[in-house]
Structure formats: C-alpha cells, structure tokens
C-alpha cells in the first residue's frame, strides 16, 4: 500500500517534469521566460561549483547559501517558538493575558512580512537582526495560537488528579499540561516553520545577497529565470524535508496520538 502511494507520487512528479519539459521544448515563450528542466539542472551544477569563476553564484555556492538561509530560519524559528510557547501557555492559563494579547497576535498574523521589514530595517539595521526578527515575528503567532488552544483544551480531570496527588502549579504545567498539549503545539510549530521558511525571500530582500532568497532576487533582476526556478525548487524541497522531520518528531513525541 505504502509502495503504491510512493509509486503514484513518483509518477506524478515525472508527469509534471515531462509537461514542463515539453512546454519548454515547444518554445512558446523564450527561454528567458520559461527555461527547460535541462537549463535549471545546468544552473544547479554551475551554482554548486565553487570554481566556476564567480564562486557558485555571485560569490557563494548553492550549499553555502542554503546554510546561511537555514541559519536565519533556524534562529528566527527558535526565538519565535520560544516566545510562542511561553505566550501561548500564559494565554491558555490566564484569561487576562489572553484578553490583552489575542488582538495583538491576530494583528501580527495578518501582516505580510514585507510590510514590516522596512520598519525592522529602520530599527535594527541591515545585518542579521532584521532578518531573524522578521522570521521570528512571522513564526511566533501560529505557535502561540496553537499552544493557547491546546492548553485550554487539556482535560480538567488530569489537572485535578495531579493536584490531588500534591503537584504544585509548575509541576502541573511541566508534567501534565505541556505533554498533553504537545501534539497541537507541534502542529503550531509545523505551521510556524512553514511560514518562516516561506518568508525567507522577503527577509533577504535587504542585504541578504548571501542567502538562497537573495539569489532568487538577484537572478530575477537580471532575468536569469533558470536560477530563479532553481532557487524555488531548493526552497520548496528543503521545506518538504524539514516538514517531514517535524512530522516524524511529532509521532515520536506523542505516540499515543493517531496519525496526523
């Protein structure tokens, strides 16, 4: 059954690739608008080659760029998740905190990252800070919302049972509330990482030329469409990999839960 599902997926990808290749081959549009898979593959090899005369692409190889972008996403998500979990716990446990912060969190969720990037640049400059903060701001609301909902939904009986056994306030949070809400929190984390990763191009519009998003932007300026498509594939595929890692972690952390 699993094998068959895998086969279907492989065929689906192959069909899409073939369709792309055929459309590119028909040259309805010039290659600068729609390059074929071969040109994108060539760019993959060229941008990974540190000895091609421009050290990969404009000074960094694809792998270096991916590393830089993943570092930014990693920091942004780590801070975002930390803030999200703490704030979500407070929101779920204390109705006052929820009443105060919920509108603000919803407000931040509605803002497109590019819109507040300009502000972050004015406040924090052009180095790593605005990029990491942008990803942090993008990442924390889903975690906060998911955590607040999960904490509010923990079965009262578990809490009361723990209290009857003499557990203090923090012990209840540590031993009952957090484990019971873990699956929902991780779902929030999964959303957060996705949002942060999809914001990386926006984050790298300002002095982020060494990242993978910076490469996409730079290539777009010179109509190097094959490089743009390559960048999108790299972001998309690594995003998929990261997502499956989080799903695996979710299964490992809450094995009592059904499949997600």
């Amino acid at each position, binding site marked *: 059954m699993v094998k068959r599902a895998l086969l279907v997926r492989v065929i689906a990808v192959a069909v899409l690739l073939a369709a792309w290749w055929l459309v590119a081959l028909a040259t309805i*549009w*010039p*290659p*600068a*608008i729609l390059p074929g898979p071969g040109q994108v593959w060539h760019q993959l090899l060229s941008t990974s080659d540190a000895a091609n*005369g*421009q050290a990969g692409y*404009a000074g960094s190889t694809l792998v270096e760029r991916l590393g830089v972008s993943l570092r930014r996403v990693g920091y942004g998500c780590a801070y975002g998740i930390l803030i999200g979990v703490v704030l979500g716990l407070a929101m779920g446990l204390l109705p006052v905190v929820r009443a105060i912060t919920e509108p603000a969190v919803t407000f931040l969720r509605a803002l497109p990252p590019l819109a507040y990037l*300009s502000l972050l*640049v*004015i406040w924090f*400059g*052009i*180095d790593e800070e605005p990029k990491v903060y942008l990803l942090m701001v993008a990442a924390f609301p889903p975690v906060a919302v998911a955590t607040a909902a999960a904490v509010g939904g923990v079965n009262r009986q578990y809490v009361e049972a723990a209290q009857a056994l003499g557990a203090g306030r923090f012990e209840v949070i540590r031993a009952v509330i957090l484990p019971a809400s873990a699956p929902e929190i991780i779902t929030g984390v999964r959303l957060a990482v996705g949002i942060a990763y999809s914001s990386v191009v926006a984050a790298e*519009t*300002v*002095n982020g*030329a060494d990242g993978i998003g*910076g490469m996409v932007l*730079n290539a*777009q*300026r*010179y*109509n*190097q469409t094959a490089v743009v498509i390559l960048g999108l594939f790299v972001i998309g595929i690594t995003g998929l990999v990261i997502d499956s890692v989080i799903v695996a972690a979710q299964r490992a952390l809450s094995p009592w839960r059904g499949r997600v």
Partner: protein
Amino acid sequence: MSISRRYALSLFAAVPVLAACGVGGSSSGSGGGKTVRIAYQNFADSTLLVKDRQTLEKALPDHTVKWTAFDSGASINTAFLGGSIDLAVIGSSPTAAGLCPPLSIPYQVIELLNVIGDSEALVVRKATGITKITELVGRKVAAPFSSTAHYSLLAALELAGVDAGQVTLVDLEPQNIQAAWQRGDIDAAYVWTPVLSVLQQDGVTLTDSAKLAAEGKPTLTFTVAGRDFAAANPDVIEAWLAATDDALKLIGTDPGTVAAAVSRQIGISTDDALSQLKQNIYLDHAEQRGPDYFGTPDQPGELAERLHDTAQFLRQQKKVDQVPDLATIRAALRVPGAGGA
C-alpha cells in the same frame, strides 16, 4: 482508464478558460484599433511632459496609447520578452543586458533621453574622514545592484585603481540605503535623488555620474522600441521622436513648464522637480547625431562602444552569458531623426 484520460485532457482544455478568467484591474486586452504600449519610469524626464500633455495621443488619434509605470529596467526587459511592451524608457545597464544573450531582446535604441549627471553620486559619511575613493578599501559601500548606480560605482572604483573585491559592496534599495546610512551601518553609497540629497547633508560627495561621463564611463537613459514594432509602425516612432525632441528642447528653454508637468505626474513639488531635472544632461536629436553618441548612419558614433563597455562589465559580473560583437550592437541602434521627419 478512458475516464481518467478524458479527465486529464480536460485539464488542458482548462488552460484557455483560465487565461480568459479576469484578474481584476485592466489587462492589456485588444481594445479595437491600434495600440501603443509604453513603459515609462517615474523620474523627472522629458517623457513625463509628453505624457502630461498627451502629445502622443493627439498626434496619433487612431491609436490607443497605454502608459505603464515600471520601477526598474529588469522588469521592463521581462515585459519586452513577454511581448507586453512596444516602447520603453530604460537605463543603459539593463539595455545592454537585454541586448546580450541569453535575453537577446529584439529591440532597438531609438533615442537618448538623458545622460545621467549629478543626480547619481558616490557619497561618503563625513564622520569617516574619507576624501578619496582609494580610501574606501575595507569599507561598506551600498548601491542598488543591477542599476546604473551600481555600474557607476564599479566604474568609479576601477578608475581610481581600487579592486572591487577590497570593498564590501552591499545591495540595498535607495530607501534602505537611507535607513542604513542614518543608523551608521554603511560608510558610503552610490545612489540617486531624492535619497542622495538626504545623504549629502552629512556626507562628502566623492564623484558623480557627470564626472564619470566625462571620463568615458557615462550612464544613459534611452528609449527602446521593439524591432518588429518599429518596422511596422514608423508613424508611431516618428510621432514619439518628434514629441520627445520637442520636450528635450523645452527642458533647455523653459524648464519651469517641464517641471510643472513632472510635478503633476509624480506628485513632487515643482521646485524638487526642477532641481531633479537640472541634475541630468539633455541632448536634442541634432546633438545626439554627434560623433559621441549615435553619429550618422554613414558614420556611426561612439554610443555602440559605450553600450559594448557596459555589456563587458555585465559579462565580468557573470550577469550575461556572452557579449555580442560591436556590429550587432550597432545594428540595435536607430539614429533618431535620420529617417527624415
């Protein structure tokens, strides 16, 4: 199986349906009659006077003239590739990129709208104490990459004998250059007005594009026209050239009128428009036929060499695959006013 095949085929049938779906706003549809699609940029220039006075609309009553604002030459090149534009106002750097493979856009340079003067300049913070370009080694210098300012910055470094690798180049849009400057994140920037005037308040100007033009590294603004479009619509090209030539002359004789039109078009004050207009150098078509620019069809001017230089520079930056030979670039120049008119 037959059902799924039919289903798959229906996906292809959906393509034209999708294309016919509205996306809101006005798309470039066939409005009946002939259409001229012009890409312009919002900086103080003769083309804004032509747009403001509707000179072209009046000269071509049987044409629909469609003006679209673009922010950068790169997006204009994309629009040309997609066949969405007939005429465009575009800088020399993106024009050179467009003429080189892999883009090889079939357009012709039909006119020189301006030579960029001191509206683009290299400014360094006073606090650094730097007074010469050679002292920029090891410093952080910002410019919007792929722009004429980027080209000028690298040309200025080269003329001063500074290897660009010894300077930390930062790619920033003008408004971000201003923010980074105010925070002290960058030491210098090559940028254009209005951000330039803000930087000059606490900065020292090391060089500007007028000086670079005098040293043989000019940056220019052109009108380009699709090759097929120009061949099929000589009347439109002549109407455009006549309108812009008048506007170029008017900048010299009556800049106030042009500034008023510019201020109406881009929403800046007339004084700002006037000072921005004065920062560039304008040549009418007779002057453009001089040996430094287009020359005459029999005696080609040096403009092709300048574009070739720009293309070489892009090649060094690995932004184009190869540089076409001088003859190809010459063939992409159409001397304004040489065909009669």
